[in-house]
């Protein structure tokens, strides 16, 4: 099963990269952007047929390693269409 884990700076935690990207977008003329937070996506191929079990394990992976819970949040999505 394909699992996507998105990891991003928590709301309220200063994100220097997101801020720099926001000001670059503004310089390019995209005046509508008021905030950017930059994160990462992990594409995992996980063995298992039970979506609930796979999701629970992916959450543990996020909290143990993929995200630093002091400054980052995460979400987990199961993909059934196998699209990357």
């Amino acid at each position: 099963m394909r699992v996507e884990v998105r990891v991003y700076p928590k709301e309220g935690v200063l994100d220097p990269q997101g801020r720099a990207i926001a000001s670059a977008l503004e310089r390019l003329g995209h005046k509508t952007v008021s905030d950017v937070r930059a994160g990462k996506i992990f594409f995992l191929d996980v063995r298992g047929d039970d979506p609930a079990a796979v999701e629970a394990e992916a959450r543990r992976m996020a909290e143990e390693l993929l995200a630093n819970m002091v400054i980052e949040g995460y979400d987990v999505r199961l993909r059934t269409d196998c699209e990357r």
Partner: protein
Amino acid sequence: MSGKPLFAIVVFPGSNCDQDCHHVATEILGCRAEYVWHRDTDLKGADAVILPGGFAYGDYLRAGALARFSPVMETVARFAADGGPVLGICNGFQVLLEAGLLPGAVRVNRGLRYVCRDVYLKVDNTGTAFTRLYEPGEVVRMPIGHMEGNYTAPPETLTELEYEGRIVFRYCDAEGRITDAANPNGAIAAIAGISNREGNVVGLMPHPDRCAEGLLGNDVGRKMFESAALALAES
């Protein structure tokens, strides 16, 4: 304790200040030092442990994130829990944060650049295993070299660090004033280094190992290593 104190210097794949630390411990202080490979679980009877600077595991994922799973880290955690002195320098500090031996986290510098220069630091806590030879409030100059030194912690953790006096070093100007301009990376409360509650685990972004002998024009960092050696010699 008999004989000269023994420093264990942990070597991760990508550590690059391990030899500097070894040099300070042996050539400058006249103590003993042993390298401990990150896969080892034996600290070779060390009296103090140093996690040196560098780029453990290439800083993949996050600085220090993968190094914390190295086998040696369980031993280091036990050593720290038993009161053994542990010093994390730069990348070593990042490893201590990821391992949860010190609270908080570092983000990329606010300027988004690697910063490599001397900074001034105010020594706010002289009660730790590595700072007892400094004067309270002393201003020292040390080099930094990092991309992710922008320390942060949840508000309740910050309050606790402040209240318990666990902020060991703060970035300041040459006169000891804590100003935004003197803060090289945006670290909250100008934090350059902190300790655990007991004061035996200390981590900092600046490099005392790079300013520990007169030959380099600055030997103020030597006192960090000497503080630990002295305490060990007395025990």
